[in-house]
């Protein structure tokens, strides 16, 4: 009963109308091949939770361009002009959240917390509709957990038990999202046998990960 499955089978777990979380930060650490398959399959009416919507042209941006998403929860959309255009045209519902808050909301969902108190956003539009609490004379916003049906992640290395290792800045939201979705799918550069990763090297325990997809090497197109 291996966790390693084919790309098409992995993406078949995502149904129209689902909420998905996608790791990555302006493309770095985003599961590009999983996203390409979501676009190819034309999954629709998704709610997308991600730091951003990539740079116009990359795999993440295509989720928006190809209109797979009708609701977006993100921290920054400035690097993909199409997201702003669809938002302004009323075609895409967008909820912008401070990055540190989104991180904690995802973590809270994964960790079974009912919410966290953050000072971020006090005195700004972010306050709207939220409960405020005062602790030790400081005002905080109560921010609630955020979870998804499916998380799409990118990892550098995995063993067949699903233990994940990330590399450099490609880690970002990936390990948090691994804890906060019903189904967790990771695209991995290198899949190794159980026992080949030292216990201290693991960044996401395998119990969180349902499916692994081997990332396919691509030919680098020569310039000119």
């Amino acid at each position, binding site marked *: 009963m291996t966790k390693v499955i084919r790309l098409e089978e992995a993406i078949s777990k995502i149904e129209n109308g689902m909420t998905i979380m996608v790791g990555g930060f302006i493309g770095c650490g985003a599961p590009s091949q999983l996203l390409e398959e979501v676009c190819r399959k034309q999954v629709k009416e998704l709610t997308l939770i991600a730091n951003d919507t990539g740079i116009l042209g990359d795999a993440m941006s295509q989720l928006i361009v190809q209109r797979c998403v009708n609701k977006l929860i993100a921290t920054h959309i400035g690097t993909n002009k199409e997201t702003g255009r669809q938002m302004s045209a009323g075609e895409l519902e967008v909820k912008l959240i*401070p990055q540190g808050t989104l991180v904690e909301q995802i973590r809270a969902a994964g960790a079974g917390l009912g919410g966290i108190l953050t000072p971020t956003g006090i005195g700004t539009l972010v306050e709207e509709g939220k409960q405020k609490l005062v602790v030790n004379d400081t005002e905080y916003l109560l921010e609630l957990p955020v979870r998804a049906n499916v998380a799409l992640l990118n990892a550098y290395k995995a063993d067949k038990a699903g233990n994940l290792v990330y590399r450099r800045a490609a880690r970002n939201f990936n390990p948090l999202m691994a804890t906060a979705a019903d189904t967790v799918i990771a695209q991995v550069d290198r899949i190794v046998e159980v026992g080949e990763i030292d216990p201290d090297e693991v960044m996401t325990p395998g119990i969180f990960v349902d499916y692994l997809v081997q990332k396919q090497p691509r030919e680098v197109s020569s310039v000119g």
Partner: protein
Amino acid sequence: MLDKEARIDWLVKRVAQEFKTGDVVNLGIGIPTRVANALPEGIKIILQSENGYMGVGPVPEAGKEDPDTVNAGGQYATILPGGCSFDSAMSFAIIRGGHVDATVLGALQVDEDGNLASWMIPGKMVPGMGGAMDLVVGARRVIVAMEHAAKNGGIKVLKKCTLPLTASRQVNLIVTDMGVIEVTPKGLVLREIAPGLTFAEVQACTEAILLTPESEIVEV
């Protein structure tokens, strides 16, 4: 008066004087990024990149770019020896938890209460706040580094911000190409004036009333 590029250089060098060795600093995109290359001789600071690492190094040589090592603006970057990588939860624990000594960032508007507007112009430009709201609330010191006037000549140092705020009452210092302004309980104090300018010239480009270092209201 210096030409525009020289005035920006002055601004960048002036911000760089605010740090001491060992300070943990987060630099925003644009003018703030240039501060890293303008540090006084012998001063070594530790740069944090909110997408997940500590010890931001110089731009990599051509051909040595690592797709997993980019800065918070999405450009190729490097990690210096002694640096370390982490997830977004740790990154914002560092930021929100008061472990960043200073953040340097640009602004659309800043006002005499230390309010900052930097993340949206309603109906026009809504890129989102990214990590800015956490940085401004969490960093021990918030330094705004920007051109004193907007490109269209509009005034950016106001009595009261009119754009949606990034954070309320968090700015400590405003360094522009015209001068260095400290946010104090009494109001904005113009601590230094860029070479070739007068107090009156700076005040003329500023809506908020500027105080002299002697903290008296000045007749312009």
